[in-house]
């Protein structure tokens, strides 16, 4: 019995050592077209000098999990290192005809729809891999959508720390207060990933989030 307790103790110590050495996985989650990849590009440009992925006005531009390793951000003499994981937008419906309406040919639209469905499944699977998550919402859209609530509820159920970004504050229709009212128990920071508005506040928020 004593040997068992010692073994358990050693395993626990070893687990903690490797846990601390492991890089923090910071996930960007949200519905399609919220601006996850725009924000990922902003972070990568600011700290690595390169882009992460392509962006588009047509939904489901990101259809595969993308990872940028070893990002180190600095603020007020502190450093924060993490691996950034940009995920495909989570949706409950995908219709290839929407892509045709956006100007694609039928074959291309069907291919995009198929890849997009796989992307949503991957995003959901990856929830368990995340250490901390930034949920990127379009502040011009209705924050009470069930997808937003399901994402945040699942992160809460997994005890994963969450920061909510109300993106696209540069647009007239942006309503940060509505996002704050929808998720009063979380920190909500309004930014424009496209123009970099309030980005320093976002980085400060990351330091608070990743302890």
């Amino acid at each position, binding site marked *: 019995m004593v040997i068992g307790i010692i073994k358990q103790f050693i395993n626990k110590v070893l687990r903690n050592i490797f846990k601390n050495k492991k890089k923090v996985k910071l996930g960007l989650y949200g519905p399609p077209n919220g601006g996850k990849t725009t924000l990922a590009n902003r972070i990568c440009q600011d700290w690595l000098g390169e882009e992460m992925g392509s962006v588009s006005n047509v939904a489901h531009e990101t259809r595969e999990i993308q990872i940028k390793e070893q990002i180190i951000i600095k603020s007020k003499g502190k450093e924060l290192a993490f691996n950034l994981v940009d995920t495909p937008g*989570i949706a409950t*419906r995908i*219709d290839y005809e929407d892509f045709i309406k956006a100007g694609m040919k039928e074959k291309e639209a069907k291919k995009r*729809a198929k890849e997009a*469905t796989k992307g*949503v499944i991957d995003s959901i699977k990856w*929830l368990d891999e995340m250490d901390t998550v930034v949920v990127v919402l379009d502040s011009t859209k209705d924050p*009470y959508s*069930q997808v937003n609530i*399901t994402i945040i509820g699942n992160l809460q159920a997994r005890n994963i720390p969450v920061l909510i970004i109300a993106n696209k504050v540069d647009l007239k229709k942006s309503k940060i207060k509505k996002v704050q009212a929808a998720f009063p128990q979380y920190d909500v920071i309004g930014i424009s990933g496209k123009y970099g508005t309030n980005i320093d506040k976002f980085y400060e928020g990351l330091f608070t989030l990743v302890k």
Partner: protein
Amino acid sequence: MGLVLQFVPYSEIEDLGPARRVNKLLDMAKENKIVLLGGRLKQEEEADLIAITMEEISSDFKGIELAVINPKKKENGFFDGIKSAMINKLLGDRQGFTIIGPATIVKQIKKDPDKIELFTKEISVKPKKKKKKS
């Protein structure tokens, strides 16, 4: 064809495992029914519902619209808090209700904390041509 609303009391899914619960509800939505579940799924089951929906998407089935209504009363003081905690403990996932509609019929479900609006797609029905009397 009219709109079919299928009410599912929580007792119908209570004893099922997570996968069977999700599949049962999704199968109804795939039959072009709008499902009204008395109660709610667990958070992980909601995520599973989305993932399984994605696996099922085809040219006929475009996905679902989903909304969960879980009325939360404002707690006024300590005793109200205890009362709410007890109700939560007793009723659990039986509280509130869930709407699942096929995307081919339900265009959007708008949710405010206090109300819900369900927008259906306009289905144009061509009027039957009258037969000319000879």
